[in-house]
């Protein structure tokens, strides 16, 4: 495959500068975050490239584990700060929701594809990274959606609990809405994959010279891994949140105002 030069990459930034100019001339104030994130994206991806090159050469399992743990921690932080409705210990809930779903699912998928090479750096790190990156949005949407529903509809929750509903019954509507919110984007992208859009990984593989049928199979594995991670990650994340709101069976500490809201 033809290598892209650094000069080509930098010259592509003209598109971002053009978008930033439109924002500036219309006073939308998104030019700064637009340019900063373009620069960050460029530097981070380049650094990742050099870092992965090094890790792939060394190819030691402890370094691989350290790398994917660091990726999970950074993903958790990034997710946590994006949440609008926070509850105490939510960072931990987020971390566990991510680690309990993305890691095992990635390992199972890689085992089914090629058990011999599943623990190699150039297989495990990109695959786990891709799943974490995609699962992150869904999980944060789900947890944020649940917290928002519970806090905004606390009078409804109180009404239901007062009639003898269990925490599970009283939070059923919020749980259902949050799960729908978190899984809608991936359900939509799975529904239109191959018709409206050619998914990113498949595009990359085809451009790198892989046969389209093979890359379609790989893309399907990724879609299954991502959708399952989002579904289970959101489920666990929301369960943790529900446990927070209904401590000791069913007491709503947040009614006294001890919940955190950014």
């Amino acid at each position, binding site marked *: 495959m033809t290598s892209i030069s650094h000069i080509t990459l930098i010259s592509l930034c003209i598109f971002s500068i053009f978008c930033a100019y439109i924002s500036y001339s219309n006073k939308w104030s998104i030019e700064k975050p637009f340019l900063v994130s373009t620069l960050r994206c460029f530097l981070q991806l380049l650094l990742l490239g050099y870092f992965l090159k090094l890790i792939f050469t060394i190819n030691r399992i402890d370094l691989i584990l350290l790398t994917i743990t660091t990726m999970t921690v950074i993903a958790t932080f990034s997710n946590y700060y994006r949440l609008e409705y926070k509850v105490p210990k939510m960072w931990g809930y987020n971390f566990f929701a991510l680690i309990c779903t993305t890691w095992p699912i990635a390992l199972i998928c890689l085992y089914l594809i090629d058990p011999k090479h599943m623990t190699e750096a150039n297989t495990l790190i990109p695959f786990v990274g891709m799943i974490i990156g995609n699962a992150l949005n869904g999980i944060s949407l789900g947890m944020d959606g649940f917290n928002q529903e519970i806090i905004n509809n606390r*009078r409804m929750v*109180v*009404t239901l609990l007062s*009639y*003898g509903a269990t925490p599970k*019954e009283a939070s059923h509507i919020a749980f259902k809405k949050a799960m729908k919110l978190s899984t809608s984007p991936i359900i939509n992208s799975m529904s239109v994959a191959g018709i409206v859009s050619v998914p990113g990984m498949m595009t990359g593989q085809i451009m790198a010279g892989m046969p389209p049928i093979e890359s379609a199979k790989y893309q399907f594995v990724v879609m299954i891994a991502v959708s399952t991670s989002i579904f289970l990650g959101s489920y666990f994340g929301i369960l943790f949140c529900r446990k927070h709101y209904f401590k000791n069976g*069913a007491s*709503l500490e947040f009614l006294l105002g001890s919940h955190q809201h950014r």
Partner: protein
Amino acid sequence: MEHHWSFYLEAINIDKLWVTLKGIHILQVEKFCLQPGDVCYLGGHSGSGKSIFFKSLIRLLPIEVQNYKIFNENAMDLKPELLRTKIMYLNQQPQIPHHNVHEFINFISTLSIYQGQFNQFKDNMLQLLRAFSRDEKFLTLETSNLSGGETQILQLILGILLCKNVLLLDEAFSAMDRHTQDIAEKLVLKWLNDNSSQRSIIFSSHQPELSHLNPQANYVIHKGHVQKLE
């Protein structure tokens, strides 16, 4: 025999109860007693903690308590959802989920605590609706279109049908007009008198002097302390 028991039983008996938020006691009860068949008025200015007290009684808030018994059963040993069928909290702003009244009632009937025992209530529900000059059409109303008073009527009807022992009325008739409020109070008194050895009421209201619920006991919340008025 039942009457004999009621002489010794207390509807509610609390010794030392605290509601704590971030290490600070925001509500304290030294002693709270309520006899079966009694109506108790809970007073206090706005924001004094009346709703917090009611919610702590149904363990909707985290509480620390030395002794809390309801009809001789330790309230802290009961499952919260079971406790809430014995002592039911009706508040001034109930929020009703689901699309219409019928769906909401159906949802309540599917709660695990009422499995297999809700059907008997349906006929009584229509009778209670008629007392408020409402018929079956009320069941088809969208819950989002119910007025504050209608929502309180629905809440009260379910409370009367489902509550076993103690009704906690936290300004539960505040959105009703005077006439509807009279009907509501008569129904609540009828509920009490139907089985007065096993039932009691605690209520708070901004206009207790206009109420038909003549209290036998009066408590007031002052500076976070629940005190009995002699």
